[in-house]
């Protein structure tokens, strides 16, 4: 058992000095959103500039705080800022307060830093959209909510941010809602997220019932002496929440469809930040999970399944954004797996989250740049040979590609390799299964990312006749370059020195050195070998042979993968059908069909919205009868309880 040096031992200091400005981190982008959304057309002229300035200002504050934090002892880097007493219900009281510590600092820098870059990129990307101002308003709203999520000092306030990012993401996915499929995608994201949010609210309820508190301090203090059963229940509910938000198995299906939104949204929300909120939740709840090994095991299983699942789906997608989405799903699977491993993995989960934030955001923006030059074409079979016309996009995307597949010395190598090593630590069957999954995942990742890269940038040109690809304007390529530098170098800075692990130690707890079941060099060698095989195979398939412009029928597995491994069919039979039967059961007769738009929505409820509610006959006498029977029931019940 590794020694756990958990968060509760470090005392949070009251935020002073630069840390007293923490509220500004949230307030600034929120102000931006308010001005842009309430100001209306008047703010069209400068909307995008204001929208970019706000997250940048927050980023500056974040950097100053980070530097200030570096100047203090590791034990004294936690600050809490009490804003006000939010819900004083009896003796039970919830304060609205912020918690700035090493973990939230990582996120603040990621969100504001990558966020600012994506805002800058969007200035160019959305230039011709008449609603660009509104778009920036939503982006700022998202940044504010996401910062609230990671800075909250209680689960309840975290839940506010959690709902807020959800709201912003629906608004952004459905930003082009005049296209029906986009609206449908927003709806799907909505439903999956509601299931997740339900998990979070139940978890909060259990915490409240068990510990009488929902603040991190209170819950973690209570978690020390709590029964394993309660902690497992809380853990599983938190996992459900994480699955919804982070598109983990079995709630993963919405992420691919969410690509309907504008590409900067995919980069910011569905790659770098929001979808990683689930990982944050689990790492933040370390004291809960440390006391619930069963819940941890489930987290690891979910992570392992998702990473393999996402990777397989990624191999067959021809839509560049959907392939990237599948890859995101898979990479978050890695993070979940690491987070489920306990103290040994928390820091690596965050490490991979940060590097992934850079290289995946970079690649999404790169994909956006390609689409920008190709008349919004997303079909990779119509790409090919773009490297010669879009040099900057090609190079920056290439760096992201090298980073994600884990070629040393790029970022992904450092973070992913650590997760694979950590997965191989343990006894019995677990290291072999989970480590094996992580290892195989690395190989498949190399294959599908190479496929994506080669199909897009190399090989012969399979363009449709009407496109004339050109490099994107500077305002779009500069963020690409910055992100590419991050993709290349971040791992090198944080990895070999173990800087991040030490940085996070006060929050996530330290763990002793444990050797994996296979020695580290062997594992690294195996990983690199698999990566090489994946790359080579993809090369032989997609460069050595011509890529057909129409997808071949493919094997059973390819076809299944193309259809997201039939997840929609499974969802329908597991989630919707029983719902349908339940609704039908509640219905007495059925012969009423509701028209038009309502039927469209009814998909949400399983398509049976049109038939129901027959008890409400409209006859006043039958109402009187139900009241009479109710009265009789009440009298009977009262007389019965007396006995």
């Amino acid at each position, binding site marked *: 058992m590794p020694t756990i040096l958990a968060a509760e031992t470090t005392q949070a200091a009251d935020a002073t000095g630069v840390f007293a400005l923490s509220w500004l981190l949230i307030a600034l982008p929120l102000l931006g959103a308010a001005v842009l959304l309430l100001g209306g057309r008047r703010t069209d002229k400068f909307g995008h500039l204001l929208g970019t300035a706000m997250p940048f200002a927050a980023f500056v504050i974040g950097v100053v705080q980070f530097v200030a934090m570096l100047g203090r002892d590791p034990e004294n880097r936690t600050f809490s800022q009490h804003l006000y007493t*939010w*819900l*004083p*219900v*009896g*003796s*039970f009281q919830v304060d609205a307060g912020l918690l700035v510590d090493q973990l939230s600092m990582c996120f603040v820098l990621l969100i504001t830093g990558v966020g600012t870059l994506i805002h800058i990129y969007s200035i160019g990307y959305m230039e011709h959209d008449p609603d660009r101002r509104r778009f920036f308003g939503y982006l700022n709203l998202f940044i504010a909510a996401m910062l609230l999520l990671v800075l909250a000092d209680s689960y*309840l306030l975290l*839940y*506010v941010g959690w*709902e807020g990012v959800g709201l912003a993401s*629906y*608004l952004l996915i*459905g930003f082009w*809602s*005049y296209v*029906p499929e986009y*609206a*449908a995608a*927003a*709806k799907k994201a*909505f439903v999956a997220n*509601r299931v997740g949010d339900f998990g979070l*609210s*139940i978890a909060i*309820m259990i915490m*409240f*019932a068990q510990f009488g508190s929902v603040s991190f301090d209170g819950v973690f203090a209570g978690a020390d002496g709590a029964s394993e059963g309660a902690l497992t229940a809380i853990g599983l509910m938190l996992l459900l929440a994480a699955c919804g938000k982070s598109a983990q198995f079995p709630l993963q299906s919405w992420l691919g469809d969410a690509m309907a939104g504008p590409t900067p949204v995919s980069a910011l929300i569905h790659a770098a930040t929001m979808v990683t909120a689930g990982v944050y939740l689990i790492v933040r709840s370390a004291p809960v999970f440390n006391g619930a090994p069963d819940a941890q095991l489930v987290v690891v299983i979910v992570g392992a399944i998702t990473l393999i699942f996402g990777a397989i789906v990624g191999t067959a997608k021809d839509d560049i954004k959907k392939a990237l989405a599948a890859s995101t799903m898979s990479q978050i699977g890695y993070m979940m797996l690491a987070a489920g491993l306990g103290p040994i993995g928390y820091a690596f989960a965050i490490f991979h989250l940060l590097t992934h934030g850079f290289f995946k955001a970079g690649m999404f923006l790169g994909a956006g740049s390609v689409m920008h030059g190709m008349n919004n074409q997303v079909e990779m079979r119509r790409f090919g040979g773009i490297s010669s016309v879009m040099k900057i996009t090609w190079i920056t995307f290439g760096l992201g590609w090298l980073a994600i597949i884990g070629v040393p010395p790029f970022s992904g190598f450092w973070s992913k390799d650590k997760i694979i090593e950590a997965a191989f630590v343990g006894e019995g069957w677990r290291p072999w299964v989970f480590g094996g999954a992580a290892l195989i995942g690395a190989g498949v990742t190399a294959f599908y990312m190479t496929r994506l890269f080669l199909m897009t940038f190399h090989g012969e040109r399979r363009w449709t006749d009407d496109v004339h690809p050109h490099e994107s304007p500077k305002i779009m390529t500069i963020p690409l370059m910055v992100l590419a530098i991050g993709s290349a170098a971040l791992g090198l800075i944080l990895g070999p020195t173990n800087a991040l692990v030490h940085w996070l130690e006060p929050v996530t707890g330290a763990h002793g050195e444990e050797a994996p079941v296979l020695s580290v060099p062997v594992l690294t060698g195996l990983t690199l070998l698999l990566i090489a095989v994946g790359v080579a195979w993809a090369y032989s398939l997609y460069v050595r042979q011509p890529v057909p412009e129409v997808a071949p029928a493919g094997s059973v597995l390819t076809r299944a993968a193309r259809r997201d491994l039939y997840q929609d069919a499974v969802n329908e039979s597991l989630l919707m059908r029983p719902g349908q039967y339940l*609704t039908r059961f*509640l219905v007495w007769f059925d012969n009423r069909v509701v*028209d*038009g*738009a*309502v039927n*469209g*929505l009814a998909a*949400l409820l399983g398509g*049976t*919205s*049109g038939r*129901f*509610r027959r008890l*409400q006959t*409209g006859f*006043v006498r*039958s*109402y*009187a009868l*139900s*009241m009479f*029977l*109710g*009265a009789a029931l*009440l*009298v009977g*019940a*009262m*007389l019965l*309880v*007396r006995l």
Partner: protein
Amino acid sequence: MSALSVSATFAAAEFQTPSIEYSKLMPMLIVFGVALVGVLIEAFMGRTGRHQVQLILSIAGLVAAFVSVTMLAGDNQIAAVGAVAVDGPALFLQGTILLLAIPGVLTMAERSLDRGGVFTSAGSSTPGSEHERVLTATGVTQTEVFPLTMFAVGGMLLFPAANDLLTMFVALEVLSLPLYLLCGLARRRRLLSQEASLKYFLLGAFSSAFFLYGIALLYGYSGTVRLSGIAEAVSSNSGSDTLLMTGTALLAVGLLFKVGAAPFHSWTPDVYQGAPTPITGFMAACTKVAAFGALLRVLYVGLGGLAWQWEPVMWGVAILTMVVGSVVALTQTDVKRMLAYSSIAHAGFILTGLVATDTVDPDTGAVLGVSSVLFYLLAYGFITIGAFAVVTLVRDAGGEATHLSQWAGLARRSPLVAAVFTLFLAAFAGIPLTSGFTGKFAVFSAAIAGDAAPLVVIGVVMSAVAAFFYFRVVVLMFFNAPAPDGPAVAVPSPLTTVAITLSVAVTVLLGVWPTQVLDLADRASQFVR
């Protein structure tokens, strides 16, 4: 006023003037006085300007009554020879009702959405007749609604303050009778409106008969209708249990009918749908506040000693109400009807807090069951008034467009209205930073403190179910394409704008910064006995 005073004078064989503390009854006296003046205006004033005068008078009366409530704050005594309690819960609820009635009256007075206002020119004219056409052509507005509303408000003020069951019965009728009429006065869709009125009236009269028989049985059990007297009889356990139990159950029928709890909820959807929308909003908010106040007082003051018996029954009612409201609402296609089922579900959530009973918070001394319900009612009332006011704005040629399919893509037509309605729906659903969340949080934590955790679990599950149908509307408004012949969003006069703005402000304020009001509810949670 009270039967007791009369019997006391008989016993003394010499008539003594009962002492009435008029100052303590000031809020009710003001409201009833304004109502009577309103009737005189109807009788003696010319048509021109009557509308403005009535509106100003009503609003002034409501504000004055509210001021007098605030001046009574902190009082804790029984007035009017035992008939009326002037205590924390009564004053809090009276204040709530008056505050809610103000936006309620404002939306009723709206005349720029529909020529001549939302009410028919003459309730007595037959729909489709020549008489009606002539009246419509002249653009006459009926202004009787103002005094009627004031009478209803007066009854609502008395209802939660009634300290004996006879006063409570009279208050029940005083608040109900005007509402029956108001339901039938819509300008558009008069058949539906009249049907709503008829149904509400018949079922309301039916339920009040049960209520009254319950009073009779409790009187037979204890020999008094004073709540404290009944409480004494319960604690000394004199008299027949059968009378007590049956009486309690029948009394509960009448009150549960008014709050719209299952299985006495069946009138709610029909009446809410058919009634003129401003009336629906007023009724949904204020009646619920008043009726829950009365229910609290009866169960806590009169029958507190019987809590062991009524608690399990109330558990059942709460669960059934939450389930029926949330589940049936899932498949509604009419906005008003959906909100009606949602109000049923909310009655269930409030009942969850109510069964926390006398659990007293050790720190603040607040009675959790009472304070949480008080807060929830205030929060819920404003959300409801606001939501129904928004419904009045979405119109097509035939009047209000209440079918959900007509709301598709509303955000494209009017982002502001869609956003405001989304806020109210989010508050209904209990999303944090809205008053609905704070309210749910309060009642659920009260229920947990009162050892009703299973009830809370069901409550949370049902909130999640309910969230689906609220957000279905949000999805519809934002993510669906508008129908080509869809409704437009009408620009209201300042009256409705003020009402909606007020509701939005309260909803956000009670979500973000509820401290003061929660404290106030805590301090107001002690019943005088």
